[in-house]
């Protein structure tokens, strides 16, 4: 596993401090945008667990993001708040169960087939959401009141308050990072990374690879569900696009651009891609051209992939060790 170097760790802490202090000076618009990005960072880190550490390239990860979001919608009474402490665990559990069922099927394939089958399952949920009246059909559905954090008569924070919501998103992003770092250092983490490197050898050593991959898939699905729940809570709105392949593709892009298998890279990927999109589609700066923001965005992505094959996070890891030249020393 690539552990962040002291320099990277220091930079991450500076970034964290900046995010923690931002609400003191920031505008309402950017508070909301940054909260959205931090939610996407949770989503991207959960996918990096699969792509970067378990070697499972999923193109259907939005399925679990969508399940988490729709779970909050279903758990919210029409014009009253759902309890955060009840609805959040249920939403995460729903995403985890969806990942368990889907994972048990898709993990029987590998490589390109795995990519296709994960995509197919996400699309199934997408069409289910479009057709289902209970889920609001293609129009989606509103969550009129944000989940309420009251517990035993005490209300530690208010998700309806922009600053509070911002700090909750920040805390959960940091918690997700710490959780995944811990898991990757554990016995389980070593096993899934061994499976990514050489699955037949791991089986010959005695590891039932399928079970470990399924556990990783469930953990990643649960965290994607957390991100989906937060996203639905932020915008008060869900629609079938949350399951869509664009969603799965854009989070995969954050992971690739940020640096596969670095964990902090996908956070950077979420920030860079979302802020860049915001910048390029700003009418005040680009006048009429802002409508074509996908064009400069595409050029940026192509250049980034060509120039930074290991992603933005790869920059921080220093030059690549070459096994060939290294044998001479």
């Amino acid at each position: 596993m690539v552990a962040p170097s002291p320099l990277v760790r220091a930079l991450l802490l500076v970034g964290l401090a900046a995010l923690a202090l931002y609400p003191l000076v920031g505008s309402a618009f950017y508070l909301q945008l940054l909260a959205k990005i931090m939610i996407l960072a949770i989503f991207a880190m959960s996918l990096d667990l699969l792509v970067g550490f378990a070697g499972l390239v999923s193109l259907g990860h939005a399925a679990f993001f969508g399940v988490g979001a729709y779970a909050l919608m279903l758990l919210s009474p029409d014009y009253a708040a759902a309890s955060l402490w009840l609805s959040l665990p249920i939403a995460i559990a729903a995403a985890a169960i969806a990942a368990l069922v889907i994972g048990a099927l898709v993990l029987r394939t590998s490589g390109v087939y795995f990519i296709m089958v994960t995509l197919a399952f996400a699309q199934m949920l997408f069409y289910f959401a479009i057709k289902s009246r209970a889920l609001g059909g293609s129009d989606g559905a509103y969550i009129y009141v944000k989940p309420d954090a009251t517990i035993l008569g005490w209300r530690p924070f208010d998700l309806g308050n922009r600053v509070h919501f911002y700090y909750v998103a920040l805390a959960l992003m940091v918690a997700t990072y710490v959780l995944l770092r811990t898991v990757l250092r554990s016995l389980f983490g070593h096993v899934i990374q061994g499976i990514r490197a050489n699955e037949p050898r791991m089986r010959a050593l005695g590891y039932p690879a399928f079970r470990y991959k399924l556990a990783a898939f469930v953990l990643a699905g649960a965290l994607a569900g957390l991100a989906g729940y937060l996203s639905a809570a932020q915008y008060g709105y869900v629609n079938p696009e949350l399951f869509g392949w664009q969603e799965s593709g854009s989070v995969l892009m954050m992971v690739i651009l940020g640096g596969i298998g670095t964990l902090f890279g996908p956070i950077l990927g979420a920030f860079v891609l979302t802020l860049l999109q915001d910048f390029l589609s700003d009418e005040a700066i680009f006048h009429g051209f802002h409508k074509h923001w996908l064009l400069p965005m595409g050029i940026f992505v192509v250049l980034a992939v060509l120039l930074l094959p290991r992603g933005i996070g790869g920059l921080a890891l220093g030059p690549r060790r070459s096994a060939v030249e290294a044998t001479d020393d």
Partner: protein
Amino acid sequence: MTEPVLEASALSKQFGGLSAVSDVSLILRMGEVQAVIGPNGAGKTTLINMLSGDLAPSAGSIRLDGREIAGLSADRVARLGIGRSYQKTNIFPDLTLVENCRLAAQARLPSSMRFFRPALDHRAPLEGATRALARVGLAEPWDRLAGRVSHGEQRQLEIAMTLATEPKVLLLDEPLAGMGAEESEQMVALIARLAEGHAVLLVEHDMDAVFSVATTLTVMVNGRVLERGTPAAIHESAAVQEAYLGSAEPLP
């Protein structure tokens, strides 16, 4: 004589219409080294793959300590006590020597579904790893990357990883492949030492090595057992010389 540890009877494997292994039986006891020899395509590796659970036999039975294991998955077979090494070096090049063996030794734990405590805080796998590295005689330092050590050392590591899973039965698929004379000599001495505490089945092309280390030889040709006996008996066998060398020339 000790009880058989591994007992294969009438094993066969067909790939479509091709019979890779037909009706091969084998009894392996604790403390002995047996070797399977034969020309390329004789079915030696297919036999190993069946014993290790990598391939399910088309027919026949495999008993480990009297328990039927034919058709079990490779990881089940490994946990029951059959360890294997590969003809082609099969290690984790991006991990250090000790990490390779630690990961192998970790497979001995009842479960690795442990998500929070750092892996390196679990002492048993680390101790198992250093024991295995010491036993095969890999030179320190052990924090070298496995992908960067010499071929001979990688072959040693391959055996050390198998040992770290603490198997009863060792299936060694051409452990001497690609080794120099001196390295081969060390490996042969190691295999002889491994007989203590293990039942060893060796597939090997190097005839000098096989004749010096094995107590029983099985000669396979075209998927069948042609002859079985002590090295001396095999050396004298006219049938073996005929089939193996394609002529009546005596073996070297």
